[in-house]
Structures are given as structure tokens and as C-alpha cells.
């Protein structure tokens, strides 16, 4: 393309993006179309990719097309394999996209659509994408080493220990919060429980089919599993209408929590081919299809957003979770803007598939942009709902009251009109008994998605099917995260215990498998139980804790990245990772301080424990609050340690007192020909 034409094209994109951003930011008192959000996102992401990521690739990281990657040097046809960049992109995107970018933006919509949207756009372009990009490159230059190994090599023993501690902590809290979302979505819902419950025998059946009948035909088996899941959604409607069967699937939150804890233990101990692998395939199949469908649905339907740009709850009194816009909006939306968890994927399977260094830009930076676009779709799904309906679904009974009349009165009093009859009709139209107090984000997202889909395909008559499809879609990949996370957590504990006593480290020893499975399931099960028993719905308690842990892991990743940049003599460009690092430290440390010490009982763990103690409340609840305060404090202290250690390294190198030696693999010239590449 000629330079003049290229200039006109990018100038046009910049202009369109500016108009879209101005529209979503400056409109007050009138509703806007969802396409403005999508346009703003696409233009911002296109500009970010074209200019900022190119700047990082060519000026900061100096990607070298002549340098052989570990996929080439260590090619073994198994985990190390030079792979087409688009294939790696799809592989990486499938691994990083989970329930986070769907749930976080739905919860943050209590502040209005504007804060979440702006944070997703800015956070992704300058934070999340940069983190994924640089960690992927640094792992590629270290033979695909993991974040904890890189931290140990580059920052020292403290770095390695803190990274390990952060990973295991975030894993436990993540699994608990994921399980809580499923519990809150399925409680008292025979249709949903039946459908999601049926995915377990379907996955087992797929495992047997794949191993015995059609070995290796994974795509065919996944398509078959998908058809069976659709049949299960249909069957769920029948089950919910049959009182004798419905009674077996109408479960309370504690019953569901116990069922998920038992399931988590079984999934961790069963052979991988029987449950984990087929469920993973099924979840990926549904995920890729549904995300594409949702994007198409929003573009074709271009629905109107009913949520205002800002709500009164930016003052911290929100019913979905308590806390002011700053810092809580920025820890509520993690995946979608910046997620520390991604650094584990970027230093996991992906670096072993990269064919050329120059392709890392598209995989690392590009895949994160795609995930951020999913987060924008989730924002749209939440904001197409009438605000009154959104708050009725997402507010816990402890805030708005147990009865529909009390809840609607409270929510209408906040300035968001909602009626008990209307909510009852909506619940009936999606095949539920009630939609009040369904905290966790998943049901609100499902209602929004069903609203968008039913307007384009099938009308109101199939709203219930779309709702349960959306619910199944979310629950399916939440349970996949639960399966995989429990197993990974088990291995991490086995590896650690193996240093203390060798037999415990044997990953094939059944007593060791059982003991460590009990440990990891007990750890996240404890937090899940705490969330289920929480009178405020649990999400208010666990989601901020998860957000803090996830962002603290991102802090660790950015500390590692900044240290390596300085060691590479790229200190003049260190702001690329230092700026998001400073922002995250400010956000997470402020949020942690509030969660521990804030005098409001809805925010501060210690304040709630104090109030419960004064009122002679439940001793276990008091202990749980104190424990949460300790967990948050430990996380902050760990990250402060790695920050101090990193800063010592930076200052030492810049002052010339320390050796600026990076621990990269030696440079080898690539032998991949242009044709093969």
C-alpha cells in the first residue's frame, strides 16, 4: 500500500475511534447503541497493535527474525514444534480466554458502562497485551521456561519463591470463586443443574468414544459432545417441568457446593483421558463457537445500552460489590484488561510452538486484544439489560431483602425502576422460578446474551433455551478451569512436598495423589464454603480477593519483565513495563489496604469481624474474615518483597554495581528457510 493511502487509512481509523470514544464518554441522559463500544474497541485495538506493539517489537525488545527459537532448536515433535503463527494464535487464545473476561465486566457494570469500557481499552493496550507479549518473548529466549523459573533466574531466590507463592494462592482463590459462580448460577435451578450435571456423563462418554471407538477423532467427538449438550439443554426443560425429577435437581447453595467439592476431588484423581481431556475439548469447542456467535449477534442486532455511563455506585455503596470506582473497578476487571494468570500461559505451552521471534507480537499482543474484545462483548451483554433488572439479578438478599417486593422497592429507591411482576415474567420466560439475588455475574450475562440472541434467532419463545445455553456455556468452561486448576495445583503441591520428603513428590503414586488432591480441594473448598455461607452472597467477599491475587501476579510478571529490560540495556524504554507496574502496584496495594482496614463492614475484613464479634455473631464467620485479612496481607507482603528485590537489582545495574547479565539461551542463527517459515 502506498504511504499516502496508508496514512489516510490510519488517520481514518483514528478519527472514527475518537468519535466513538467521545460518543461513549460524553453522552449523558440518553441511551447509546452498543456498536459505539464495539467501534471504539476495534479502532483502539487496531491503533494499539499497529503502532504501540510495533514500537515495542522494533525499538524495545528488538525482535530478531534471525534468532532460532526453542521450537526450532529443541524440536522433538511433541511439545517443541515450529508452528504456523495463526495456529499458535488460536491455540494461545483458546488457552487464555476463560470465564474471567465475561464475569468481571458484568460485575463492574454496576458503575455504569463507561469505567469498565475505558479500563478494558487502556488496560489492554498499555498493560495486559504488553505483559503477555514481553513474558512470551522472555520465555522463548529461555527455552520456554516458566514464570517462576525466570523469576528465580533473573531476580533471585526470593523472586522464585514469591512467584510460586503467588501462583498457588491465586489458583486456590480462583478455583473457589469459579465454583461460587457456578453455585450461585445453579441454586434452585433444576433446568440449569440438570444441563450442567449432564455435561459430566457426556464428557465421560466422549472420553470412552475417543479412546475405544474413534481414536484420535477429537473434532468429530467434540461435535458429537456439543450435540449431546444441546440435547441436555432440551432435556433440562423437560426435567424442570416434571416435579418428581425437578425435585432431585433443585439444590440449595450448600448442597451444590458439596457436589462441586466432591466433583473437584474426583476430577483431580481420575485418569486425564476420561474426564479432563474430553471436557477440555468440549469446552473449547463451545467457547470458540459461542464467542463468534455473540460477536456476530451484537454486530447484527446492535442493541441499545440501557445502563447509564456512570451510576451513583461509583461512591462505593454498590450492591454487587462494595468499594469505590478507584481502586475496585480495576481489580474487578482483570482478564480483559490485564491478568497475571496470562503470564503463566505465555510461559507455558505457547513459547514452545513459536517459529520466529517476530511472530510473538501477533500471538502475545494480538491474542490478548482478542480477549479484550470478548470483555467488551460481556460489557454490552450486561448493559443491554434495564439497570433495575441488572441490579435485581446481581444484588444479594442481604442488601436488597429476601422478598421480591422488598428488593424491587429498594432498587427502585436507588433510581432504577423495577417491578416484581416484570421480574417474575422475565424469570418465567427464561425457565427459572426466580432471578432475584443470583449474584456472581453468570446469570446476568446469560439473561443479556439470551436477550440479544432471542431478538435475532427464534424470538421470545426460545429465550429460555438461549438463557440455559449461555448458562451451560459459562458453567462448562468454569468447570474446565476447576478440573485443570485442581490438577495443576495438585502437581505444584506435589513438587513442593517432594523437596521435603521424596515419596510425596511422586506424581504417579496413588497415596500421594489422594493426599495432595485432598489438600488442594480442601483449600479452595474452604473459601467456597465461606462464600456460600456469606450473608452478602460471597461474591462481595471473594471476587475482590481474586482480583487482588490476579493483579499481584501481574505485578510479579511486570517486575520480572522490567528487570530483564534493564539487564538488556533497554532502561530508556523501561517505562513500557514500569508504567503498568506502577499503576498495578497503586491499585492492588490500595485495594488490599481497603479490604483489610476499611472501617466499612461491607469492605474491610477486620471491620466485619469486629462487628460480628460485638454482635456475638458466628465464630466461624469471624475467623473467616480474619483469615481473609491475613491472606490479603501475606499476598501484599510477598509482592512487596519481590518489588524491593527487583528495585535493588535495577538500582544496582543502573549504578554500575551489579552485573547486567541476562540468563538467555545462547544465540543460534535460524535454519528455517523462508519457504518453511
Amino acid at each position, binding site marked *: 500500500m502506498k504511504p499516502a493511502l496508508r496514512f489516510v487509512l490510519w488517520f481514518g481509523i483514528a478519527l472514527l475511534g475518537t468519535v466513538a470514544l467521545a460518543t461513549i464518554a460524553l453522552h449523558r441522559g440518553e441511551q447509546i447503541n452498543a456498536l459505539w463500544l464495539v467501534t471504539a474497541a476495534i479502532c483502539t485495538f487496531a491503533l494499539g497493535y499497529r503502532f504501540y506493539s510495533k514500537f515495542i517489537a522494533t525499538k524495545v525488545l528488538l525482535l530478531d527474525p534471525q534468532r532460532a527459537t526453542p521450537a526450532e532448536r529443541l524440536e522433538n*515433535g*511433541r*511439545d517443541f*514444534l515450529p*508452528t*504456523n503463527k*495463526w*495456529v499458535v*494464535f*488460536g*491455540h494461545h487464545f*483458546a*488457552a*487464555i*480466554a*476463560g*470465564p*474471567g473476561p465475561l464475569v468481571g465486566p458484568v460485575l463492574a457494570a454496576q458503575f455504569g458502562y463507561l469505567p469498565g469500557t475505558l479500563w478494558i481499552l487502556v488496560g489492554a493496550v498499555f498493560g495486559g497485551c504488553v505483559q503477555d507479549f514481553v513474558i512470551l518473548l522472555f520465555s522463548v529466549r529461555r527455552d520456554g521456561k516458566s514464570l517462576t523459573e525466570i523469576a528465580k533466574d533473573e531476580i533471585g531466590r526470593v523472586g522464585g519463591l514469591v512467584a510460586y507463592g503467588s501462583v498457588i494462592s491465586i489458583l486456590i482463590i*480462583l478455583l473457589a470463586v*469459579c465454583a461460587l459462580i457456578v453455585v450461585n448460577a445453579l441454586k434452585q435451578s433444576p433446568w440449569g443443574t440438570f444441563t450442567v450435571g449432564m455435561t459430566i456423563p457426556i464428557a465421560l462418554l466422549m472420553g470412552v468414544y*475417543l*479412546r*475405544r471407538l474413534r*481414536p*484420535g*477423532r*477429537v*473434532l468429530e467427538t*467434540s461435535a458429537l459432545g456439543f450435540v449431546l449438550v444441546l440435547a441436555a439443554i432440551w432435556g433440562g426443560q423437560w426435567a424442570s417441568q416434571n416435579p418428581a425429577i425437578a425435585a432431585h435437581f433443585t439444590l440449595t447453595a450448600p448442597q451444590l457446593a458439596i457436589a462441586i467439592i466432591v466433583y473437584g476431588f474426583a476430577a483431580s484423581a481420575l*485418569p*486425564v*483421558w476420561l474426564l*479432563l*481431556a474430553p471436557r*477440555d*475439548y468440549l469446552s*473449547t*469447542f463451545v467457547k*470458540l463457537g459461542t464467542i463468534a456467535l455473540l460477536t456476530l449477534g451484537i454486530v447484527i442486532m446492535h442493541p441499545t445500552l440501557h445502563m447509564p455511563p456512570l451510576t451513583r455506585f461509583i461512591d462505593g455503596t454498590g450492591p454487587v460489590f462494595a468499594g469505590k470506582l478507584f481502586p475496585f473497578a480495576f481489580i474487578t476487571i*482483570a*482478564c480483559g484488561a490485564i*491478568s497475571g*494468570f*496470562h503470564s*503463566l*500461559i505465555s510461559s*507455558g*505451552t505457547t513459547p514452545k510452538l513459536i517459529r520466529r521471534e517476530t511472530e510473538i507480537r501477533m500471538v502475545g499482543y494480538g491474542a490478548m486484544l482478542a480477549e479484550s474484545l470478548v470483555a467488551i462483548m460481556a460489557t454490552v451483554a450486561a448493559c443491554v439489560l434495564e439497570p433495575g433488572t441488572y441490579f435485581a439479578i446481581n444484588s444479594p438478599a442481604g442488601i436488597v431483602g429476601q422478598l421480591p417486593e422488598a428488593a424491587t422497592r429498594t432498587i427502585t429507591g436507588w433510581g432504577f425502576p423495577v417491578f416484581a411482576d416484570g421480574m417474575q415474567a422475565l424469570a418465567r420466560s427464561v425457565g427459572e422460578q426466580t432471578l432475584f439475588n443470583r449474584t456472581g455475574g453468570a446469570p446476568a450475562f446469560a439473561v443479556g446474551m439470551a436477550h440479544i440472541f432471542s431478538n435475532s434467532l427464534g424470538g421470545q419463545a426460545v429465550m429460555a433455551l438461549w438463557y440455559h445455553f449461555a448458562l451451560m456455556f459459562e458453567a462448562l*468452561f468454569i468447570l*474446565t*478451569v476447576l478440573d*485443570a*486448576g485442581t*490438577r*495443576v495445583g495438585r*502437581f505444584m503441591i506435589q513438587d513442593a512436598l517432594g523437596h521435603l520428603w521424596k515419596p510425596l513428590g511422586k506424581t504417579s503414586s496413588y497415596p500421594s495423589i489422594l493426599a495432595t488432591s485432598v489438600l488442594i480441594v480442601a483449600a479452595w473448598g474452604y473459601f467456597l464454603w465461606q462464600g456460600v455461607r456469606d450473608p452478602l452472597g460471597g461474591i462481595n467477599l471473594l471476587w475482590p480477593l*481474586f482480583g487482588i491475587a*490476579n493483579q499481584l501476579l501481574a505485578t510479579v510478571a511486570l517486575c520480572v519483565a522490567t528487570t530483564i529490560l534493564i539487564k538488556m540495556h533497554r532502561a530508556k524504554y523501561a517505562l513500557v513495563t514500569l508504567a503498568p507496574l506502577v499503576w498495578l502496584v497503586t491499585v492492588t496495594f490500595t485495594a488490599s489496604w481497603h479490604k483489610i482496614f476499611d472501617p466499612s463492614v461491607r469492605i474491610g475484613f477486620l471491620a466485619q469481624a469486629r462487628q460480628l464479634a460485638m454482635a456475638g455473631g458466628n465464630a466461624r464467620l469471624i475467623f473467616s474474615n480474619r483469615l481473609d485479612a491475613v491472606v490479603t496481607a501475606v499476598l501484599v507482603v510477598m509482592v512487596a518483597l519481590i518489588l524491593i528485590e527487583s528495585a535493588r537489582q535495577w538500582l544496582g545495574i543502573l549504578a554500575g554495581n551489579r552485573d547486567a547479565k541476562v540468563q538467555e539461551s545462547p544465540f543460534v542463527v535460524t535454519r528455517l528457510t523462508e519457504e518453511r517459515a
Partner: protein
Amino acid sequence: MSFLRTLRAMLREIFDESAYERFCAREGLGPCRESYARFLSEAGWHKERKVRCC
């Protein structure tokens, strides 16, 4: 056509079909229950340690 070929390759890689094909080629085996069972025991080690993001 090129787009469809890439999409197919992407899906086959994500769903481990290509990995199984490579395994068969490397070990000189045909697609059958036994080879798939061997592939699963080799690939399972990697699969069960693979984190899935939130």
C-alpha cells in the same frame, strides 16, 4: 481457500489431532486404539499440567 486451510490447521492443533498424527508418524504406527492409548499416556502428562486461564 488459504483461510479455510489455516482455520482447519488451527482447529486440528487446538484439538490435538495434529499432535496424534505426528505421534503416529514418529512412532511408525497407524491410527488405532493401541497407538491412541500410547499417545494419550505420552500427551496426558503435558495436558494435565496445562493451566487454563480464568
